[in-house]
């Protein structure tokens, strides 16, 4: 029993983390839960106030508002800087696997499609998210409203989980079915521009996965469990001994999956010099492992 818990320690703590953040928002709104007279966490993932004074803002949403040609209050910018700083330390896409509520849905879709061995129908490029990210900023500029925030199934789901469920589940159901029947990790791994935004952050973030090449037997277990297998391209990580790709979500699946325990969380080391040739390989691998 304790063995099972230990083997799933990251999966379990990720769920606890996701649910408790959701619960904090929910209880602060529904029950006005207060500590020392201040509400613990007011708002939702787009913007919130921690302990009644610390502003937190989704930096991607803030960027969109800035691109729409509107200035923001100092508090909002501070909130965005705090969140940016947080993910610069804990890994850009740590948001995706430790906070985002959609992750719970897509994780289960991935599990189901693996169990029923459903083949992929589409082959979306993993870099589509960057194009959508760019497009959202251009459209924010052209239309004068935060483009992705108006259609984001993430904010919609999270907002409605707190302020009352309405039609937000439709977008989420579409994501679930898409991930299950059309393509593996279609939303989180290919399309989501918020994931793309945090991917860019992840390229310089501090907490990374370290790879011990001496122990590796090249069994490929990590590849099969990883939601973004291109980050574990063996040719690359054998040279670099660390997962430098921003697409890595710091979910810790590879750490618990690897029978030789090759992976572990560690702080970023300076990257080897031969980046030019490596970049080509990374691009190659991104295209290959759709």
């Amino acid at each position, binding site marked *: 029993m304790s063995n099972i818990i230990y083997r799933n320690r990251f999966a379990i703590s990720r769920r606890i983390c996701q649910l408790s953040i959701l619960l904090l928002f929910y209880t602060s709104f529904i029950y006005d839960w207060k500590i020392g007279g201040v509400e613990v966490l007011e708002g939702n993932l787009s913007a919130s*106030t921690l302990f009644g004074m610390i502003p937190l803002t989704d930096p991607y949403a803030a960027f969109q*508002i800035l691109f729409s040609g*509107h200035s923001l209050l100092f508090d909002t910018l501070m909130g965005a800087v705090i969140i940016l700083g947080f993910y610069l330390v804990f890994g850009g896409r740590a948001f995706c696997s430790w906070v985002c509520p959609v992750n719970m849905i897509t994780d289960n879709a991935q599990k189901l499609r693996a169990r029923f061995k459903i083949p992929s129908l589409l082959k979306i490029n993993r870099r589509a998210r960057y194009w959508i990210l760019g497009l959202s900023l251009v459209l924010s500029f052209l239309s004068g409203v935060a483009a992705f925030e108006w*259609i984001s199934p993430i904010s919609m789901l999270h*907002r409605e989980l707190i302020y009352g469920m309405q039609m937000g589940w439709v977008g989420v159901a579409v994501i679930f079915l898409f991930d299950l029947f059309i393509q593996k990790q279609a939303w989180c791994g290919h399309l989501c521009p918020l994931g793309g935004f945090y991917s860019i952050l992840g390229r310089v973030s501090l907490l990374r996965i370290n790879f011990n090449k001496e122990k590796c037997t090249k069994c490929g277990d990590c590849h099969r469990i990883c939601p973004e297998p291109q980050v574990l391209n063996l040719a690359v990580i054998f040279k670099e001994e660390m997962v430098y790709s921003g697409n890595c979500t710091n979910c810790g699946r590879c750490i618990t999956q690897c029978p030789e325990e090759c992976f572990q969380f560690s702080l970023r080391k300076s990257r080897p010099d031969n980046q030019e040739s490596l970049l080509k390989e990374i691009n190659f691998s991104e295209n290959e492992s759709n």
Partner: protein
Amino acid sequence: MRSQGDKNIKMVAEGSRRDFFIKFGQIGTFALVGGTLWSGFLSNAKSHAFVLRAPGALPEDDFLATCIKCGQCVDACPFQTLSLAKVGERAQIGTPGFSAREIPCYMCEDVPCARACPTGALDRGIDINQSRMGLAVLLDQESCIAFQGLRCEVCYRACPLLDKAITLDYRTQKRTGKHAYFEPIVHSEFCTGCGKCEHVCILEESAIRILPLELAQGKLGENYRLGWKDKSRITRDFKSESDSGTQTSNKEIQQEQRNRVMDSLNDEGTLYE
């Protein structure tokens, strides 16, 4: 040998240029189709909704751009007046607003909703008596019982800016010849659009309603000069004598209005004297 090598390199270059154009075209097509659909949705979403916003809301275009849909104003409202719009409601999904007939704005002096707004979509510095959430309009005189000669005054009494935002106009009732009509008249100079009048209207469907300002108000052309209000001399270009002069007087008028406004909820016993 060397020229052969050069030729190969050239072919590779041409190939990659070809690839580049094809890729550019493919991605460009996706971006164009997706961008068109997306912006179509956005322009649809941006069309002005029939909705009353929280006090201090910026002009609708700016409000829609800066509102991050976090719901902190909803959380802050002690009367549960505000709610985030759901699919199929009149407001854009996720944006805050209220329905005056259900729960009106109770005009908290400290305006907690506006203070809670992280992005400035609601002006944090708003003075609640200066806010303009909408404008009360006595929309249906045919059903309002005051216009039938019955005594009502409920909207007049409920108004937080009693005798300022709504006054009663007395008129002789011709049918009986000895009674009076007590007709409520709304004054845009004071009405904040809080909606208490709409909330309390005794009819099955309220005769007095809060409308968004752009629906409720007309605008007099600048060429009109109401001589009994504007005491400045007529100039050749039909503009006021000096712009700076009118600006200061506008400010003075605003300050005077502010001083005259007395919220009946916060009255300390001098209002009815």
